[in-house]
């Protein structure tokens, strides 16, 4: 156990906790919008960096390093899409989702889906899928935290996992969205400094980028290929498309990420946030993959490739710098884990408990349900991560593929296509999730050379288009939703009368009853 590293790590936790508490006090509006969306007061820089640090999880330090270590430059296909994920998300749905969610009075991304595609079934399916997948996704963060903590402290994995999990869970229970957003902002800067520092040290160690590539070519020229070590993915464009899509187009379907749009200060915040996201991604995204590739030269006989970046840091950097880098790694893990846990707890309390079990639940009761859920995920996550920890890269790619396949078309069409209706969205979510899960479980990618996300996204997109068009007459999009969409498309201030629609869903039900009454009168 290295004392200097521990000191830096503890210092990091103290600073993060301090920022979290400051943000909590700053955003303490006392209402649910303040807790879940920071009162919709988040500016472009914090929006961009919370969006990016939330999506750049422990995967970037474990999964990305491992992929690069085992497949060489092929792994950069993931970075190719990921670099543009932020600006793509913000440019396509950012402004419109912010505006529409305000008019609908939605506080969670799932509630937003129900308001846009009015039906309790929309919410039940979306909430259930999200809770399961986000909990699965957070499992990867626990494993990453445990492995990192074990390496830094020298403790056994079991104890390190318990400490990492306790820190993440307690820290999440303390704060709301604003605390998460501001700590994410700080953590994103630490992540950037940490990863660039490791790359710099690694490049110096191997004699520069060109020299490293020449040495890699001497070991195995296929490491430098776009088809992977041993040309394992040669000609598999479907798999390549999946690698590019999962962190770009698929990213528009992640409920914990698109919530960031709803919390922006103004719809136009998306504009500058998109630019900041690209700048940050250009500096950050490819770096862990490059370190993973250089690790082939620096540490050629690694037992666990997932520890490639940890090991490179420990091998090349002095203890004080290793402390900063370890803080960066924990920052990546925590900034994702806290958002996932907060989102899962919010969905469980608001979209499942209040919506379907106890509609008259008080905010206090919902807060307790949310906390109980976070704790339950923590305990289950600990047991799974302890008994049979799956590879971080597998869990992250699986969970994000299914999330993207299930939700991306529903979120995109929600703001762009007036004919996208409730049956179309429900079938799209089910088909997207089922296709990508089956593709993964049956290992169809190996035989068809099509990645689960490629197939899942295609299937869910086709489903929303075909089913919406086929059911247009029987299930038209309600007029109040169409009016809100038209207002969303228009540039300019939102009229007060539309913001005042506090219960968008009730209006939908009222219109349904009016329509039934009219039909009844017509029949008589």
């Amino acid at each position, binding site marked *: 156990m290295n004392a200097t590293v521990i000191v830096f790590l503890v210092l990091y936790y103290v600073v993060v906790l301090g920022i979290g508490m400051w943000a909590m006090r700053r955003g303490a509006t006392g209402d649910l919008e303040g807790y879940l969306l920071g009162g919709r007061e988040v500016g472009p820089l914090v929006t961009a960096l919370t969006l990016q640090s939330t999506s750049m999880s422990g995967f970037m330090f474990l999964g990305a390093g491992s992929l690069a270590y085992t497949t060489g430059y092929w792994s950069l296909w993931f970075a190719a899409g990921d670099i543009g994920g932020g600006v793509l998300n913000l440019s396509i749905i950012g402004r419109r989702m912010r505006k529409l969610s305000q008019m609908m009075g939605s506080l969670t991304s799932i509630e937003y889906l129900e308001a846009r595609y009015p039906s309790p079934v929309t919410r039940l399916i979306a909430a259930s899928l999200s809770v399961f997948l986000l909990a699965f996704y957070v499992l990867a963060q626990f494993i990453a935290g445990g492995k990192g903590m074990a390496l830094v402290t020298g403790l056994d994995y079991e104890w390190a996992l318990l400490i990492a999990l306790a820190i993440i869970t307690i820290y999440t229970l303390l704060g709301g969205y604003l605390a998460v957003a501001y700590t994410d902002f700080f953590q994103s800067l630490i992540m950037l400094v940490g990863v660039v520092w490791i790359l710099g040290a690694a490049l110096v160690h191997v004699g520069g980028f060109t020299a490293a590539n020449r040495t890699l070519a001497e070991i195995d020229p296929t490491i430098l290929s776009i088809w992977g070590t041993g040309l394992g993915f040669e000609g598999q464009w479907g798999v390549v498309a999946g690698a590019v899509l999962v962190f770009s187009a698929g990213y528009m379907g992640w409920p914990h990420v698109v919530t960031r749009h709803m919390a922006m200060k103004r719809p136009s915040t998306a*504009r500058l946030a998109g630019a900041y996201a690209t700048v940050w991604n250009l500096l950050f995204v490819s770096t862990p993959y490059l370190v993973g590739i250089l690790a082939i030269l620096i540490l050629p006989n690694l037992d666990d490739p997932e520890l490639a970046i940890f090991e490179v840091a420990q091998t090349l950097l002095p203890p004080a710098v290793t402390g900063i880098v370890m803080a960066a790694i924990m920052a990546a893990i925590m900034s994702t884990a806290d958002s996932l846990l907060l989102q899962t707890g919010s969905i469980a309390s608001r979209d499942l408990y209040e919506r379907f079990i106890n509609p008259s639940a008080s905010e206090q009761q919902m807060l307790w349900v949310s906390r109980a859920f976070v704790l339950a995920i923590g305990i289950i996550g600990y047991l799974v991560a302890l008994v049979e920890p799956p590879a971080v890269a597998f869990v992250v790619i699986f969970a994000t593929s299914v999330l993207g396949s299930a939700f991306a078309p529903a979120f995109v069409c929600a703001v762009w296509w007036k004919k996208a209706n409730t049956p179309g969205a429900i079938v799209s979510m089910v088909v997207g999730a089922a296709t990508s899960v089956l593709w993964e479980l049956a290992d169809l990618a190996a035989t068809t050379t099509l990645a689960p996300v490629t197939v899942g996204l295609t299937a869910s997109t086709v489903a929303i288009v075909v089913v919406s068009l086929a059911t247009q007459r029987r299930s038209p999009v309600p007029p109040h939703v169409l009016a809100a969409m038209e207002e969303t498309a228009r540039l*300019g201030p939102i009229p007060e009368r539309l913001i005042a629609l506090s219960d968008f869903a009730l209006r939908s039900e009222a219109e349904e009853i009016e329509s039934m009454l009219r039909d009844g009168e017509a029949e008589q």
Partner: protein
Amino acid sequence: MFGLPLSTFLLVLGFPLFWILYTIGFLLLTRNWENDGDAS
């Protein structure tokens, strides 16, 4: 270039270049967004 095959070089630098151009295009096309969304 940098000891990489051309295809890999394009993968490493081509995609970032594409996203830079996409972002510049996005900023140029959305110059009129500034007054959007404030309640009237």
